[in-house]
């Protein structure tokens, strides 16, 4: 056990730090609050810059334009990005989830065709997984692809698609055989979103924004060459994408949470509870301290999980608790913030008295989604029960 950085890790971090100091945009604060539609070209340009500096996909193998970074280095990457408050990258699904899946399952031609443009943000990717009747039970999905010569004909509907409105390409899970058990009849197609028959609609969520889309497919023709992996092996391809989702998600969150609790502590000195600053209220102090502690533990859990993967090559049992831990913690953090702010907590962006221009009222609502997206807490607990503790499958 040694939590000091190795010389290689220090070198990696210092090189990145130097690069970020010279290159990170200073005006992100002015763009941050704008709708994504407006800021998207800005985010695309930022990713392009990272790409040119060789920093867009540090986890990818070198031959595909990455740095072959270890998990610890990836973790350092996200920490440094958060430290300088760097903007997010435009093509985050392409870089984080879909690119690695194409590298793992794609043909040489697919890799040559898609990988460089994922890195440069020239082509934005979205993910067509969930359907109205297939959420936690993803393998029950019904969007169908029927072979017709050298094309598949796709019909169906996807939902909760991030970046659907701007996506050029979509990693789509479809049913190619409905006469076999549900997991065994799925395939993954790479779909050009400009294909005739693709219709994208905004999905308004409880926060009032439309981060996500619904996508409808009507007789969409997809060349067989765009099949990712083998036909009817789509479940394995999709699960591998989801593993990337659970792996890379948490790494960037610790510093964001740490910044939030630091800001909340600062605000708790200004907001009053029974005539004195909330920071002096014994019960508020207890709650802030609990939250602070859990944010630290989240990081230690993560470091143990990374070390486990590095040592054994497979994600260890610690990995499966990350999603539950951060998502439920984020909800508690937002609730404590509401308690500190009292009636001011509910004020939305645009009200002159809104705390930090409404990011906390937004956060309170948005974090309800955290325990649902990327695998509900219930599904995560099933995974721990069955795959980690070896209890019999419940469904």
């Amino acid at each position, binding site marked *: 056990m040694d*939590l000091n950085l190795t010389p290689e890790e220090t070198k990696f971090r210092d090189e990145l730090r130097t690069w970020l100091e010279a290159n990170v945009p200073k005006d992100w604060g002015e763009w941050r609050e704008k709708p994504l539609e407006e800021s998207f070209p800005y985010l695309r340009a930022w990713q392009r810059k990272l790409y040119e500096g060789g920093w867009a996909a540090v986890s990818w193998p070198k031959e595909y334009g990455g740095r072959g970074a270890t998990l610890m280095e990836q973790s350092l990457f996200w920490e440094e990005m958060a430290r300088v408050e760097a903007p997010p990258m435009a093509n985050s699904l392409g870089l984080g989830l879909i690119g690695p899946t194409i590298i793992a399952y794609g043909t040489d031609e697919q890799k040559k065709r898609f990988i460089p443009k994922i890195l440069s943000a020239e082509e934005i990717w979205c993910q067509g997984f969930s359907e109205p009747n297939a959420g936690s039970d993803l393998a029950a999905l019904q969007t169908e692809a029927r072979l017709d010569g050298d094309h598949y004909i796709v019909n169906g509907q996807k939902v909760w698609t991030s970046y659907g409105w701007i996506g050029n390409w979509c990693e789509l899970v479809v049913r190619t055989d409905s006469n076999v058990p549900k997991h065994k009849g799925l395939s993954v197609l790479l779909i050009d979103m400009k294909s005739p028959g693709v219709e994208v609609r905004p999905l308004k969520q409880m926060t009032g924004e439309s981060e996500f889309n619904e996508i409808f497919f009507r007789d969409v023709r997809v060349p067989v060459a765009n099949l990712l992996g083998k036909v009817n092996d789509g479940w394995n391809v999709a699960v591998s994408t989801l593993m990337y989702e659970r792996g890379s998600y948490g790494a960037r969150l610790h510093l964001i949470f740490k910044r939030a609790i630091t800001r909340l502590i600062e605000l708790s000195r200004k907001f009053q509870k029974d005539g004195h600053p909330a920071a002096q209220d014994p019960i508020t102090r207890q709650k802030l301290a609990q939250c602070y*502690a859990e944010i*630290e533990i989240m990081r230690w859990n993560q470091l143990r999980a990374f*070390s486990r993967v590095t040592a054994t090559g497979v994600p260890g049992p610690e990995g499966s608790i990350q999603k539950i831990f951060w998502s439920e913690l984020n909800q508690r953090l937002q609730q404590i913030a509401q308690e500190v702010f009292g009636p001011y907590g509910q004020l939305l962006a645009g009200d002159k008295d809104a705390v930090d221009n409404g990011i906390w009222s937004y956060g309170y609502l948005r974090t309800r989604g955290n325990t649902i997206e990327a695998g509900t807490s219930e599904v995560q607990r099933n995974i721990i*029960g069955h795959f980690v503790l070896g209890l019999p499958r419940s469904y």
Partner: protein
Amino acid sequence: MQFGLSESQQMLKDNARKFFAGECPMEEVRRLMETATAYDEPLWKKMAEQGYTGIIFPEEYGGVGLGKVELALLMEEAGRALLPGPFFSTVPFAGAVIDAVASPESKKKYLAPICAGDARSTVAFLEANASWNFVDIHVSAVNATLTGEKLFVPDAAVADFIVVIARNGIFAVASNASGMQITPMLGMDLTRKLYRIEFQNTPAEKIGDVAALAAGFDIATTALVCELVGGMQRTLDITVDYAKMRKQFGKPIGMFQAVQHQCADMYLETESSRSAAYYAAWALEENAPDASVAVSIAKMYASDAARNVGNRGIQVHGGMGFTWENDVHLYYRRAKSSETAFGDSTFHRERIARLVIDADERLAKSA
């Protein structure tokens, strides 16, 4: 950066597990807990032969000179075995306090016999106000004698000398000192006996100043957290085994999500406690700037987690979990005694608040 165990650390942990499984299985725990002191001399000698009694202490006093992480792993296994008797009181508590506060001469006199396995000891801290804040200590030495009362002192009846925390210093009192009366307090944890000690002009030898006490207490607190982690892991293991085997409605109860999710939460809290415990041990070893906060975070989290894990473990066992025969309640009792020792989660949350919220404010004001 590597937050896993090294090969030698893993070996130490594996050996400790084998040692306790062989020398102190549950039948032995149950036998000892029915005795007055829960102390077994042959077992003690064997632990000394393993080097456990001197694990973190300098070689010049007969110790093994290993680090806090190694101590953490040993304590985790001791906790898993529910090791009865004065090991905790003697080694990571009294030993660590002596190591932190005493002069080389005093260490030769008091620490060396602990390392050698020749002496057992404990620390007397709490008084009637039951406060873990040093400012609430009233007992004070006058002309090298102590008068007053200490409560909740673990394993005092088998201690060869007792380390007493007084307002004006740290003192060693021999077990046969005059004017000292040790009487049992009937604690819930039958494997770790508690005592009331009354001093009446009892001769005491000053071994150090209170200024250095915190370093010893941080080690003891972390060691206790590691014990809790071992106990949680054992409770989880027993519970999962039971959920796989016990059938109702024609199915193993572990097939029901209501049961699975209880087990998943036990797992989450056990692993998170372990992360916090290991980090605290490492931070102490490295004198990291956040070491004291880390110790409080670990104690805060594990104190609540151990109780929660026990609650869930008993619940999943159903009626079986409520029997004397089942082992889960033995760990549950230990968890309660350890929860209050060195301050419960409320105490440590306030300590974290002082270190994080208030320190930060002082910083902001001075800037």
